[in-house]
């Protein structure tokens, strides 16, 4: 029973990590009033860049950095088009996802079917060998801890720091922030780049830790789940964490239940994590007043100086 519990928790945490990374990035982006729907594309860009770099150098850590850089590069493409050239953010984000999928498939054509270095798992002597707690708390790779640390840092930053206040001001009323002398576009550029970096890391987690290989479209919609998590958690980091873990748990359970031989159509079980997560997050954040409180009022609206 305990081994089962450990397996369940370890799998849940692993499945939740790419979602957490990408969603934390998207949360920052949306808090400043920008909607970037290109998360899936940036994740794939990160996944192939990370895989290629790790394969080329033999070092998984170099792969992680390359993935981060690729995510930033793709997000800056989005930023230039949306923030400087003022295009529609929804359409541009969708285009970024389509671009990322195609471009990563093109770059990745030569990397299919070859192994690459895997991100090593942490091993703390003593702690990692503890029963139950060891593997659940101290047996993951660095990106798992980084994802949690980044979420905590972002939550703290948004809630308690001056920078967070400015970000929220830009997201809630860019005119007012501008009138107060804050560089609205520059702040949004920074947020978009941060979101890209985290989406890139999420991609690296997929291609270097979760399933250490490159395969076309290997993120399989997780970028979209991350975007949805941000909205359905009503822009609150704690619920983001709950949503990501819940999704990871359902993902594992839907497969586990099938292997138990329960006569539920496998197609239905495959849909369960998606449906279940949305339902739960809608239930916990159905208070319209709180959504209004946390939702960036300028979400998706372009800003032009003097416009």
């Amino acid at each position, binding site marked *: 029973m305990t*081994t*089962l519990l450990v*397996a*369940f928790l370890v*799998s849940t945490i692993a*499945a939740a990590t790419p979602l957490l990374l990408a969603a934390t990035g998207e949360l920052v982006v949306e808090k400043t009033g920008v909607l970037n729907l290109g998360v899936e594309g940036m994740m794939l860009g990160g996944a192939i860049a990370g895989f290629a770099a790790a394969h080329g150098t033999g070092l998984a850590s170099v792969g992680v950095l390359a993935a981060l850089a690729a995510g930033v590069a793709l997000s800056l493409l989005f930023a230039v088009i949306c923030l400087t050239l003022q295009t529609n953010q929804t359409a541009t984000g969708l285009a970024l996802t*389509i671009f990322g*999928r*195609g471009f990563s*498939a*093109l770059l990745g*054509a*030569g*990397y*299919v*079917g*070859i*192994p690459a270095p895997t991100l090593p798992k942490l091993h703390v002597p003593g702690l990692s060998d503890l029963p139950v707690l060891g593997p659940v708390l101290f047996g993951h790779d660095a990106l798992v801890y980084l994802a949690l640390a980044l979420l905590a840092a972002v939550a703290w930053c948004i809630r308690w720091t001056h920078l967070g206040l400015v970000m929220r001001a830009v997201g809630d009323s860019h005119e007012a922030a501008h009138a107060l002398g804050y560089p609205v576009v520059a702040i949004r550029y920074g947020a978009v780049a941060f979101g890209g970096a985290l989406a890139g890391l999420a991609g690296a987690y*997929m291609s270097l830790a*979760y*399933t*250490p*290989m490159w*395969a*076309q479209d*290997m993120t*399989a919609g*997780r970028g979209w789940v991350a975007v949805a998590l941000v909205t359905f958690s009503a822009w609150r980091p704690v619920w983001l964490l709950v949503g990501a873990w819940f999704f990871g748990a359902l*993902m*594992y359970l839907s*497969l*586990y239940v*099938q*292997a*138990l*031989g329960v*006569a*539920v*159509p*496998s*197609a239905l079980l*495959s849909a369960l994590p998606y449906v279940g997560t949305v339902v739960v997050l809608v239930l916990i954040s159905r208070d319209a007043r709180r959504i209004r409180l946390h939702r960036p009022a300028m979400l998706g609206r372009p800003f032009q100086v003097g416009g």
Partner: protein
Amino acid sequence: MLRRHFTRLAGAGALASAAPALLRPACAAEPLKVGFLYIGPVGDFGWSHQHDLARQAAAEHYGDKIKTTAVESVPEGPDCEKVMNDLAASGHKLIFATSFGYMNYVIAVARRHKDVFYEHATGYKRAANVSTYNIRFYQGRFVQGVIAGKLSKAGLAGYVGSVPVPEVVQGMNAFLLGMQSVNPQARLKFIMINGWYDPPKEGDAAKALIDQGCDIITQHTDSPAPLQAAAGRGIKAFGQATDMAKFAPNTQLTASVDVWTPYYIRRIGDVMAGTWKSTNTWGGFEAGMLKMAPFANMPPAVAALASETEADIASGKSRIFIGPIKDQGGTVKVPAGATMDDAALSSMQWLVEGVEGKLT
């Protein structure tokens, strides 16, 4: 999202020669043009990869007597009909369509271009100029099962499945029959991932099976993820379609490897000799269309038994689906002494006793 590039062998002009044949000087030694349609990229390291290896081998075998054209990532929809029309219009006289979903389009195009011969993999619709061909994948599953039966301490194996079509059902049943031939108590658990290629999900499915006590994993999906996930837990597993040993050098036991080469060489030869006929080919070890990757990571006695099983299937001495076979409900589906025929195999939709879980 459609990616399709043309690989041209033997110089340029494979498609440029769409000009009417009349304009070209009559030339007796004009090479036979052969077209190939693949469902995935040739780099999928599985299904399409194996077909392309066979294409290259055929091209090498016939040298400048043939020209081959391969079109990758052709979706199973109206686009594939267009691709086949283009190939026919540009003078290809033999076209290999290597995915099940091309079936109705192959028939439609074949009706329009009666002078072109078509070969459709894994389908069942034929015409005067359309043949079908397939591999008896279940033979490899039986060999895997024998190995699993010998090595599994729990007597419980896990099968990462794709979709519950007859090919996969045959695979699961053959695997368990192989296991039970050496361990009558053996059982099999399975998970269908509802697709052929989704690495994260394939890997997660393998983990879920291992968590339920399966100590050997096999897969009917196309990426090495289940093999890799099993290796991560120290569990031995089988590769799929191609030798995946480099993904799990210390845990891959063997893999069923698809070998299309002899068939492609023979059929191209038939067209050149003018002896091509519409046929239905379903070959396995005996036809050289299926082979096992090297037996590794197992005691020599088990490897010897596996080799012997493979040889017995090839010689016809061992006939996998031979009675008595009971289904999950205990009903005798194949009476003692009887063997399932190909028609019954092709529509198999029941699981043998010992498989846990239901087909839904």
